[in-house]
């Protein structure tokens, strides 16, 4: 990587900050999704797609991806600066999460030249929305047992079966698909292959599923003799499990290379702290209650610890004993904290905790209750917390499989 001229970086940061200050629209007149998993209406979808495209065109998304594929060709520090400016100016989320954060870096690492040429630019511009077809009705945590079939037929594979909980399934042009090409292997993992699947092909049907929040956001996807092009294989036939595992590393943030920006704006402990500071109960500031205060301190300590954990991974001497420990445990720590934190926020609002989104008397228009319910998307999606605990126990602490 080329070295960074601090002056260039400072100029870039300043420009980015000015750009976001001018271009962020915080209240478009409808409820903005807080995570990419919440996009439920066409209005939301179109707004966020335009927004991502605009950010990319301005040079603040994919700044560190190669120029040849639509990126900015700059060192990573520039993208970090752009993302910081986006966050500071409270820009809406990046929509195309699965493309930007997992399919994209995966293709950069393992894709063929043709695949990179075909897909990376569309991921950045949000022209091509991506979804992920891993989970099935019968196989979620036990992904290795996936049964959706793909049978080779000339220059393509014929796909039959069903995927479920497909985020952005209704809007996606492509899916990263894990399917079984050989049901007779001794190890179940060896029969799986990894495809870049066009979603607009005949034989694909997406059926919306309503979430616990009452909104839409994911689908069940049915495949009936749908064609997956053979040149869309990532890795060899039968080598899909390794590719899927790598994808999950990108998804869980255990591996870098993402395009930048953020795909969720879940409340952090500082937002909840601000809520606590302006909340009164019985006429008294709620933080004067020692029990509430103690819980609030606990959350501030916890979020600070997670921030420090991230900084510590940059100091090799301070992670020498278990270099993979913090990266592999960070999803578990972060998502579980977020769930408990939003639960705390709901309780902070006292009587108003009974209200929900759209009730005029609700605190912050019901944001906290909605955040809390949505927090489970992260403790379940991308591998549940229990599965994460198994991973940490087995891969970091060296315990035998359960």
């Amino acid at each position, binding site marked *: 990587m080329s070295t960074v001229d601090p002056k260039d970086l400072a100029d870039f940061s300043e420009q980015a900050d000015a750009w976001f200050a001018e271009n962020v629209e915080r209240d478009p007149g409808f409820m903005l999704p807080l995570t990419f998993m919440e996009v439920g209406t066409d209005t939301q979808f179109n707004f966020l797609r335009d927004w991502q495209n605009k950010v990319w065109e301005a040079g603040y998304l994919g700044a560190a991806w190669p120029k040849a594929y639509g990126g900015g060709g700059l060192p990573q520090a520039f993208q970090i600066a752009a993302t910081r400016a986006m966050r500071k100016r409270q820009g809406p989320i990046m929509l195309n999460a699965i493309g930007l954060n997992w399919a994209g870096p995966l293709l950069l690492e393992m894709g063929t030249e043709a695949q990179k040429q075909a897909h990376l630019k569309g991921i950045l511009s949000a022209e091509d929305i991506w979804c992920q077809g891993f989970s099935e009705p019968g196989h979620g945590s036990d992904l290795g047992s996936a049964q959706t079939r793909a049978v080779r037929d000339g220059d393509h594979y014929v796909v039959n079966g069903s995927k479920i909980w497909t985020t952005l399934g209704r809007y996606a042009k492509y899916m990263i698909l894990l399917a079984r090409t050989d049901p007779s292997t001794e190890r179940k993992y060896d029969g799986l292959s990894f495809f870049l699947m066009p979603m607009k092909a005949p034989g694909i049907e997406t059926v919306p599923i309503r979430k616990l929040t009452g909104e839409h956001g994911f689908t069940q996807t049915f495949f009936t003799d749908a064609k997956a092009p053979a040149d869309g294989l990532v890795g060899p036939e039968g080598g899909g499990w390794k590719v899927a595992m790598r994808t999950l590393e990108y998804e869980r943030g255990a591996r870098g290379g993402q395009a930048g920006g953020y795909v969720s704006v879940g409340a952090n402990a500082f937002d909840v702290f601000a809520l606590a500071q302006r909340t009164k109960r019985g006429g008294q500031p709620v933080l004067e209650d020692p029990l509430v205060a103690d819980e609030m301190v606990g959350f501030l300590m916890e979020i600070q*610890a997670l921030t420090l954990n991230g900084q510590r991974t940059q100091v090799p001497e*301070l992670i020498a004993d278990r270099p993979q420990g913090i990266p592999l445990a960070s999803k578990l720590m972060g998502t579980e904290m977020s769930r408990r934190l939003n639960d705390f926020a709901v309780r902070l609002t006292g009587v108003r905790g009974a209200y929900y989104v759209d009730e005029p008397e609700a605190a912050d228009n019901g944001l906290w209750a909605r955040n809390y319910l949505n927090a489970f998307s992260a403790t379940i999606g991308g591998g549940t917390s*229990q599965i994460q*605990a198994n991973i940490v126990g087995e891969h970091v602490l060296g*315990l035998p499989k359960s």
Partner: protein
Amino acid sequence: MKDLGRIGFTEDQATLLDVATDFCLRRSPVATVRRLMEAEAGHDPAVWAELGDLGWLGVAIPEAYGGSGLGLAEVVPLVEQMGRRLMAGPFVSTTLAAQALIAAGTEDQKREALPRIAAGEAATLALAELDTDWEPDAIACTATRQADGRLALSGRKVLVTDASEARRIIASVRIDGTPALVLLTPDDLPAGALRQETVIDGTRRSFGLTLDGIVLDADRRFDPNRTVAALEHVHLAANLLAAADMVGGTQACIDYTLDYLRTRNQFGKVIGSYQALKHPIVDAYTRYEQARSHLYSAAHCFNEQGTGEIAVRMAKASADVAYSFAADRAIQFHGGFGFTWDCDAQLYRRRAIWHAAQFGDAAFHRKKLARLLF
């Protein structure tokens, strides 16, 4: 929101961490720890001499007074590794006494004492009293000025660690109602002034100190103008080093338990494969990583006004919870063996309780943090 601190790591810290990791592993295997627990002195004088030779006692002492002029940030990795190996000896007592001298000793006192401490003379603090809280200015002991100008002490100090070996004891008292620090030497103590206490952590040597009958020259008093700040400084330094010892201990305790979970079989399976054990030990591990991050942030930010105090209190509170939980589960997960003297789990649990009872437990520091942050 106030600045809560951040990670920074110097080359000196890295070198000392490396050296200490190796040294403590070699010089304090658990069999040695157990042997020394039963011995009168409680630690190995040869190791103590080596610490002096290595220069560890002078790490945070200015060069002008015979030290190497680094700071407590560089002491943290040393104490972390000592805690990891349950190492005994007056290192922390001596380091904290030196901090008190640096913070509020008179020039004469510093010139006399600090070079000797750096060279290996043990020292300690006599701050704690029964039935007070952990506030540094919660002092009931007194010193009264006599007609001849000398100071007559009164009251009782507790948890004076390593007092029988210390060549200097720095005690907190009140003079005319104002907090003061005074310097004692063994010659000042009447017979029977020290009584060895039975404490929960068998690697410690701790004493009650009766001050009644002790009379000191007026020049034993520290600089009154800097005393209150010094008490605060020592309180935070003590918590920083306690957090270091606890974080090291937490790591070792988790590793020790993992060894058992990987080897003990029940129902035809290694017990570490049961999620009833696996998931709680993962919890212990994530709490450990968080506590260690807080520790090195506190070490790095220690001298920053405001942020230092926040970071230290977070570090101690976090270490208390992590160590207590890891060691508590360690006992449970060893089954019947966990209930025995021979299982090391109890050593860690006792050490965690010892630290919680000194200079403030997690609840105390969280209460202080609420006041600092809100």
